[in-house]
């Protein structure tokens, strides 16, 4: 492809997205449908801007799915998997099992041999992770019970593809097509192996990724992070994803599965949030491209040739899946509205089915007479999904839904903490350790990879990441967090994050480590809720100890320090206000306060000062008693039994 055609293509795709997506969103159809429609419009059957090469673009864009699965994998900590074990294994397992069994049964009834029938069954069982997650996330439904259940089922399916692919060679009924395939996989050495060896090779590749992810990737990322250049880290992240994709293609496995696995393996590493943030924009753009190419690749020629067959095929697949999903949801006691959401989210056949279909064809399981109409039906079913969800939302939910007012289910997808701490040097780590000891969850970000490594070895959960980035904070869960603590050791960075965070999340409470007076004023003006000058408490503690050493009563010294702290902090806030009213005003205001505070603290029991501890001072009582007659005076109000 020459540069010129590349740019022309890029222009067409981007323009289609930029025009169609906002329109679709405005009408309330969601971005996925917008992309799909854009694809249809620019595709060979409407405007014809893209045509034969749509296939290539689809190949390229599948990389969006690869990245999406990597990101999903990254979010899947083992603890989360454990918590979701019931819906994943129960709902997911039953959905895949029953749908496969029913489809296979129907195919057998139609007189198809059992091997291709089983292959078709597996193809139909899968749904589209890309479309469903994107659509649900956009509608904010991912955290509902129905959304959670859908996520769990998708997860099971994504993993189930591995054994399905491994099983495929064993189902071969006729010799393999070689050279005819559009996939490179068939040309690799692996295709020459017997079925059982191929199955072994597939399992071996999976094992290799898990081992490499566990023992090789973290030191590599640490080394890259130490360079302290963001783009190099991004490059490393992309390199990882592309590398795994290549490896997977070599052994004839789905790249998406490989990266998904790598994501899961890296989910516990300190680089998880940073990797997510780096991959995210590529993922979004490529997913959009993927949806467009799905739209463009819908073969209206084939559909037009036999519209009855394709449409029957599409809708019977959808109807079958819908029925199974609905029955399962009710069986698992989902409330009706959630059951409907769950069922209407998942009835399409997904992108992995494309992979399975072409793999089945290469392996000689299915013939083109089966796969071509199936591919068309799969694409059509994906295109119908957003409309089905809109139908559920607009027609079914108002009628059957027991719309509970914003009853939020406990967060399950990601574990979110109420406190995010940026900067985990000794300042931040003290905060984090105390909070954690009190059972308060904290998400910690630090940009010093050596520090992160050290702290993790000590058993602290710290993530490597640059908190000045909005996307990084988002991934750390700033939406769900109540408090953001800025504990970095650099005033400029602190101010930068404070401004960004205040701008994006006006309701977030921000607590910042301050440095000098000037930095602290700037932080207050940036909208930080509370500023703590880093050395203040420590220096007061030193002063307290010095006083005690010189014979001052400990409690007196302590109270003097507390009083100092209270007023000094008040001055900071007050002076932050006058700070920009000119240097002279500021200096005189500051000077006035400093003098006032010193005189206040100098106050002992000899003078009338504002905040003397008069309650403990018997002077006035002594004066009164020396004037009045003794005791039995009967004055009820002298009950202040102060003595000394």
């Amino acid at each position: 492809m020459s540069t010129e055609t590349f740019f022309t293509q890029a222009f067409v795709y981007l323009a289609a997205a930029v025009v169609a997506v906002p329109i679709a969103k405005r009408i309330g159809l969601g971005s996925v449908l917008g992309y799909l429609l854009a694809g249809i419009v620019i595709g060979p059957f409407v405007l014809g801007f893209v045509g034969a090469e749509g296939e290539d673009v689809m190949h390229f864009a599948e990389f969006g799915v690869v990245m999406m699965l990597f990101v999903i994998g990254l979010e899947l900590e083992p603890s989360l998997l454990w918590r979701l074990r019931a819906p994943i294994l129960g709902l997911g397992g039953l959905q895949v099992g029953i749908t496969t069994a029913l489809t296979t049964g129907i195919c057998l009834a139609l007189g198809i041999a059992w091997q291709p029938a089983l292959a078709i069954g597996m193809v139909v069982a899968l749904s589209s992770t890309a479309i469903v997650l994107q659509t649900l996330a956009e509608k904010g439904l991912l955290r509902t019970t129905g959304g959670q259940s859908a996520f769990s089922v998708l997860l099971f399916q994504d993993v189930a593809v591995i054994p399905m692919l491994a099983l495929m060679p064993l189902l071969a009924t006729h010799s393999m097509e070689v050279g005819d395939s559009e996939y490179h996989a068939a040309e690799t050495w692996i295709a020459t192996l017997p079925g059982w060896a191929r199955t072994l090779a597939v399992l071996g590749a999976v094992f290799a990724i898990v081992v490499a992810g566990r023992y090789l990737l973290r030191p590599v990322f640490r080394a890259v992070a130490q360079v302290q250049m963001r783009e190099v880290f991004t490059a490393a992240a992309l390199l990882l994803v592309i590398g795994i994709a290549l490896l997977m293609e070599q052994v004839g496995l789905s790249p998406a599965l490989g990266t998904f696995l790598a994501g899961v393996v890296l989910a516990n590493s300190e680089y998880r949030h940073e990797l997510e943030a780096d991959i995210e924009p590529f993922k979004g753009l490529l997913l959009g491209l993927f949806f467009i190419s799905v739209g463009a690749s819908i073969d209206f020629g084939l559909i037009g040739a036999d519209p009855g067959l394709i449409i029957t095929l599409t809708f019977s697949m959808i109807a079958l899946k819908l029925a199974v999903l609905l029955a399962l949801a009710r069986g698992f006691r989902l409330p009706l509205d959630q059951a409907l959401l769950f069922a209407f989210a998942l009835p399409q056949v997904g992108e992995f089915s494309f992979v399975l279909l072409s793999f089945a064809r290469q392996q000689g399981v299915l013939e083109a007479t089966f796969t071509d109409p199936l591919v068309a039906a799969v694409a059509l079913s994906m295109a119908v999904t957003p409309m089905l969800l809109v139908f559920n939302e607009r027609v079914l939910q108002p009628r059957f839904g027991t719309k509970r007012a914003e009853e939020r289910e406990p967060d399950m997808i990601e574990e979110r903490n109420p406190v995010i701490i940026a900067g985990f040097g000794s300042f931040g780590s003290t905060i984090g350790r105390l909070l954690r000891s009190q059972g308060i969850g904290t998400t910690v970000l630090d940009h010093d990879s050596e520090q992160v490594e050290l702290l993790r070895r000590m058993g602290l959960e710290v993530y490597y990441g640059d908190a000045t980035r909005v996307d990084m904070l988002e991934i750390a869960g700033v939406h769900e967090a109540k408090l953001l603590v800025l504990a970095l050791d650099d005033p400029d960075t602190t101010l930068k994050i404070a401004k960004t965070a205040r701008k994006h999340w006006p309701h977030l409470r921000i607590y910042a480590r301050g440095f000098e007076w000037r930095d602290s004023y700037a932080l207050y003006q940036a909208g930080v809720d509370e500023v703590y000058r880093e050395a203040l408490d420590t220096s007061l503690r030193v002063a307290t100890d010095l006083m005690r050493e010189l014979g001052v009563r400990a409690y007196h010294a302590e109270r003097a320090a507390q009083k100092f702290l209270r007023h000094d902090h008040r001055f900071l806030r007050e002076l932050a206000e006058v700070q920009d009213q000119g240097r002279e005003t500021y200096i005189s205001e500051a000077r006035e306060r400093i003098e006032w505070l010193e005189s206040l603290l100098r106050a002992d029991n000899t003078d009338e000062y504002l905040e003397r501890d008069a309650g403990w001072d018997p002077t006035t009582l002594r004066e009164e008693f020396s004037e009045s007659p003794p005791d039995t005076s009967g004055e009820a109000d002298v009950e202040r039994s102060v003595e000394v």
Partner: protein
Amino acid sequence: MPRVLILFAHPSLEHSRVHRRLLREIPDDPKLTLHDLYEAYPRLDIDVEREQELLLTHDVIAFQHPFFWYSTPPILKQWQDLVLEHGWAYGSDGNALQGKDFISIISAGGGEAAYCSAGYNRFTVRQLLAPVEQTAQLCGMHFLPPFVVFGTHRLDGQAIDTEARRYRHLLEALLAGEPDPTERERLATAITINGFVNRLAGSPT
């Protein structure tokens, strides 16, 4: 010979005339421990384990404090709340303090006559100390009537010196294992222990 622990609580000793003077009279005896609570815990973060350890190694427990608002200063209340744990100081298994002596050493602004039903404080000091007496009782300690320095607002330097000597006599008596059983019998219903101390000191009331 009994060991004596004085739990001393005064939030502003620097303002004090009486207690500062009293403390100077504390006998130099290894069996006596003065524990200055505000000095030890200026942030009121009482170390319960350490306090219980101290209680276990002494036989006579004394609270010494000004009678602010008819009660102990806050740190001493905090001390009671935290240190006298259920299952340790009281309750079916709580017998750590069983059989120890307890005494309050307090200074009051009003004169002795003010502390009676006819006086403006309307109650005797022992009546006002009822919560402390009951606390000691519940912990299985023998409650001795309080040693009280009355009328502190009107005491001049000389009078304070006299009070300080009486205080010294009290501590020496406690260190010597007094009062004896017969004396305890007599003190059971006494309002203060002052009379007993005066007899020891041989000085008039």
